[in-house]
């Protein structure tokens, strides 16, 4: 960790307002000209249970959560204090301290709510403080909030204390509070904020060096999650129909869409299950709307069947898959990338789909737009694959990313003229015509005169009737499969679509996909600064796979480390499967403990593999050879 950054962790119980407080504070930091990246850690529980949000803020670009953190605001878990008779909560009350100290850096700052937390109960607290040179400030945040009427405002008190300790002006925070609240509640919060700020300034002697970094943005910034990126990409592509069933973390996209679509003349449907959700999106798309659905692991499993239906009927369909740790229900609120193969290959038969895996909020926006374009132009299912980390984490992003014209084009649709022509030439419209250059045969929309056809999940002939004729079968399969090649060609026309990060001629490579992008890029910077020669490629086009570019990347390096949040090296297997070689060059760095990678872990993973120098013992990561040991 460098000195010019703040990594602020606010810890408490689920339901204690950690999320909203951190959102506001992150915005205030962004408004002060800093780059911001947030990481949300929470249990699968509504109220109570240890939760924290980390905000990393710096003048330099921040692409990951960073390593450890340097400022802890420990609020206490208010819900742990009043357990129901039958509930087992254990010693959760002090968790905001006990669960977080391991990752707090040397010389870091601790502010804890002495109204709720007792450091006497924390094992070896004083020794650890001394050992690590921590600067501890105990404040009765609860008492302070209570004085102004509402105990819940202790998060506001904590933010006021933070600002005082870091030498931060209150104006940006106050502005944001004025936007979010009004009346008595606003007044009370402003009072608490100022009270905490002033009492820290007057009553405490500061022992720490940490100050708020200063920065300035070249462009206007917005604080956006990957889920916002996806939802906004869909909206700008003219998606006005969404159907879904709540499931963490997919619910984020579903909620954002539902909160916006009806006001934009769109439709959102919360339905009985995920099979229905995907089937509704197919129905709406068939009827002439741009539609989307999505889910997470188990819910997406249910969509396997409609996914194939969309493919064989050639109904455009966009699905979102937000991965969480599996198998089965797994860890609902923790990120992993283990649904990769599930998403690439689910559904019966030789089925095809397009899969994009964006790496940050801006890519979520861009690639969702691309997914819609491809799905509607080529009449094929397109999936946007991301994970819990990108779903809930917010990052400051250039506002200009979203300044793109809308594209409500439905893609390959016949016109009235086409239909008249078809009637003259062939006697009727051939929905699934055999001869087409790119595998795409134009579709009609119910209600178009002369366009009627049968869309069938059974194999069908060129007019849409069910057919088991062997020649027709081969023609239709080949035509549908040809789409992926056409799509690969179209994607390749954009020469820089899988950009290489770092020096082109580097000796070593790191490969990743999806949300590990940022942490890998930071690692590459750090390794090159330390005298290594490393480059990285974050692959976002997973299907069709950019074979040429990944081959070029791998041919030039001695070895490559494939960094992924899976236990079975699915991404590495995908690369080997697609390219058919490079087994001897590929090593995996795997993490599947429910937490995203930190740069230090990837640096150590690299050094351990290349130099045999680093010890991975203290991390939950594992190196694995592609060829076995």
């Amino acid at each position, binding site marked *: 960790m460098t000195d010019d950054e703040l990594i602020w962790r606010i810890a408490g119980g689920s339901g204690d307002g950690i999320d909203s407080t951190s959102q506001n504070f992150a*915005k205030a930091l962004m408004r002060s000209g800093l780059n911001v990246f947030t990481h949300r850690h929470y249990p699968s529980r509504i109220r109570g249970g240890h939760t924290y949000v980390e905000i990393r803020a710096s003048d330099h670009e921040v692409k990951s959560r960073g390593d450890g953190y340097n400022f802890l605001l420990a609020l206490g878990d208010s819900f742990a204090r009043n357990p129901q008779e039958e509930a087992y909560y254990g010693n959760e009350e002090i968790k905001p301290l006990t669960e977080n100290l391991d990752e707090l850096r040397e010389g870091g700052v601790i502010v804890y709510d002495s109204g709720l937390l007792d450091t006497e109960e924390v094992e070896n607290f004083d020794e650890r403080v001394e050992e690590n040179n921590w600067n501890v400030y105990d404040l009765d945040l609860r008492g302070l909030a209570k004085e102004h009427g509402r105990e819940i405002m202790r998060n506001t008190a904590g933010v006021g204390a933070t600002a005082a300790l870091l030498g931060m002006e209150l104006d940006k925070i106050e502005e944001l509070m004025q936007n979010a609240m009004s009346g008595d509640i606003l007044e009370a919060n402003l009072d608490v904020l100022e009270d905490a700020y002033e009492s820290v300034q007057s009553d405490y002697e500061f022992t720490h060096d940490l100050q708020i970094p200063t920065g300035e943005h070249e462009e206007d*910034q*917005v*604080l956006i999650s990957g889920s*916002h990126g996806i*939802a906004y990409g869909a*909206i*700008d592509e*003219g998606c006005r*129909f969404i*159907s879904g069933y709540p499931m963490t973390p997919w619910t984020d996209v579903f909620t954002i869409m539902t909160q*916006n679509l009806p006001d934009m*003349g*769109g*439709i*959102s449907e919360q*339905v*009985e*299950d995920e*099979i*229905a959700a995907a*089937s*509704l999106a*197919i*129905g*709406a798309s*068939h*009827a*002439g*709307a741009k*539609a989307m659905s999505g889910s997470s692991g188990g819910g997406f499993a249910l969509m396997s069947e*409609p996914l194939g*239906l969309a493919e064989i*009927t050639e109904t455009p369909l966009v699905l979102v898959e937000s991965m969480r740790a599996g198998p089965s229900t797994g860890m609902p609120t923790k990120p992993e990338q283990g649904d990769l193969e599930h998403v690439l290959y689910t559904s019966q038969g030789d089925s095809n789909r397009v899969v994009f895996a964006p790496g940050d909020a801006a890519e979520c*926006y861009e690639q969702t737009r691309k997914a819609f374009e491809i799905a509607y132009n080529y009449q094929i299912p397109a999936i946007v694959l991301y994970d819990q980390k990108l779903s809930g984490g917010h990052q400051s992003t250039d506002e200009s990313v*979203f*300044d793109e*014209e*809308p594209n*409500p084009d439905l893609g390959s649709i016949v016109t*009235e003229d086409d239909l008249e022509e078809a009637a003259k030439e062939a*006697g*009727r419209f051939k929905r699934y015509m055999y001869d087409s250059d790119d595998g795409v045969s134009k579709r009609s*929309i*119910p*209600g*178009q*005169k*002369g*366009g*009627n*056809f*049968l*869309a*069938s*999940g*059974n194999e069908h002939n060129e007019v849409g*009737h*069910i057919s*088991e004729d062997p020649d027709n079968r081969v023609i239709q399969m080949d035509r549908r499969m040809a789409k992926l090649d056409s799509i690969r060609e179209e994607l390749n026309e954009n020469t820089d679509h899988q950009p290489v990060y770092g020096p082109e001629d580097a000796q070593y490579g790191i490969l990743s996909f999806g949300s590990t992008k940022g942490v890998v890029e930071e690692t590459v910077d750090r390794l090159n600064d330390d005298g290594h020669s490393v480059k990285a490629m974050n692959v976002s086009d997973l299907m069709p796979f950019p074979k040429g570019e990944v081959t070029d990347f791998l041919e030039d390096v001695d070895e490559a480390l494939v960094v992924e949040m899976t236990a079975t090296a699915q991404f590495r297997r995908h690369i080997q499967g697609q390219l058919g070689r490079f087994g001897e060059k590929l090593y995996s760095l795997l993490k599947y403990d429910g937490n995203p990678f930190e740069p230090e872990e990837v640096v150590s993973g690299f050094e351990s593999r290349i130099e045999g120098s680093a010890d991975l013992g203290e991390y939950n990561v594992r190196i694995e050879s592609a060829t076995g040991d």
Partner: protein
Amino acid sequence: MSAFNAIGEEREIDRDEFTPEIEPQATWCPGCGDFGVLKALKQAMPEVGRNPEETLLVTGIGCSGKLSSYFRSYGFHSIHGRSLPVARAAKLANPGLEVVAAGGDGDGYGIGGNHFMHTARENHDMTYIVFDNEIFGLTKGQTSPTSPKGHKSKTQPHGSAKSPIRPLSLGLTSGATYVARTAAVNPNQAKEILTEAMEHDGFAHIDFLTQCPTWNKDAKQYVPYIDVQDSDDYDFDIHNRGEAAEMMREAEDALYEGEVLTGRFYVDDERPSYQQEKQQTGDMPEEPLAERYFDDDYEWERSYDLLDRHK
């Protein structure tokens, strides 16, 4: 709107227009009750004033699913049990379409039972025909959700220990606003009921008794069918939920004892359809969503305008 130039077209409609130009691949056996559904549906369409191109017929899988192959319209032959979710979204996206969904007793009451319950609950404006022959036909004669208790088949060799589902009661309690039962052997009644169902503004559920001459020779095609409206023995108020429920219970009990009661069992003209409710709450546009995409002058709202809350 020129994009949907067949919707609302006023002209004389001939039932033969609903016959496909080509012979579909034969699935239905000679003597199959499904032909009766097809015939009744073709007869009802001109009565409702709908042409093939403004009609969307969504089917599931199985013999019943092949209805869309034998019927000329816009068709969507979906997957087992899933006709309803496909159909209701199409109707929401373009309410101008006449949407009919169809499935079998396995498809509709078994694998698709959950969708049935929820589509009825929401009262989507569509017609749902369930081909009820008390057997899985296309997979060669397994016990279905409407097979009688004790029914023996390859999958229930000792006879089924399960009581059959009660389709009419299920439709009513789930929220269907038009519930009827008709039969392939009653073509005139079937046509009338289908016509009413399509004209009904809400979810119309028709339990359509069909005979399976191959796998279910016990099916009740030879017993007398009684129309509850035509018979003096049955007096109930079709708009009264309680009386309708009582009548349904009687019909469902009697069915497996050889007395087949058909006709309309429940009609609720008061409750608005789901799309009307959704439009009232501002959750759905007044004009068809699908039309937007063909309107060059429509101003599409952009996400850029939503960014203020993220600054």
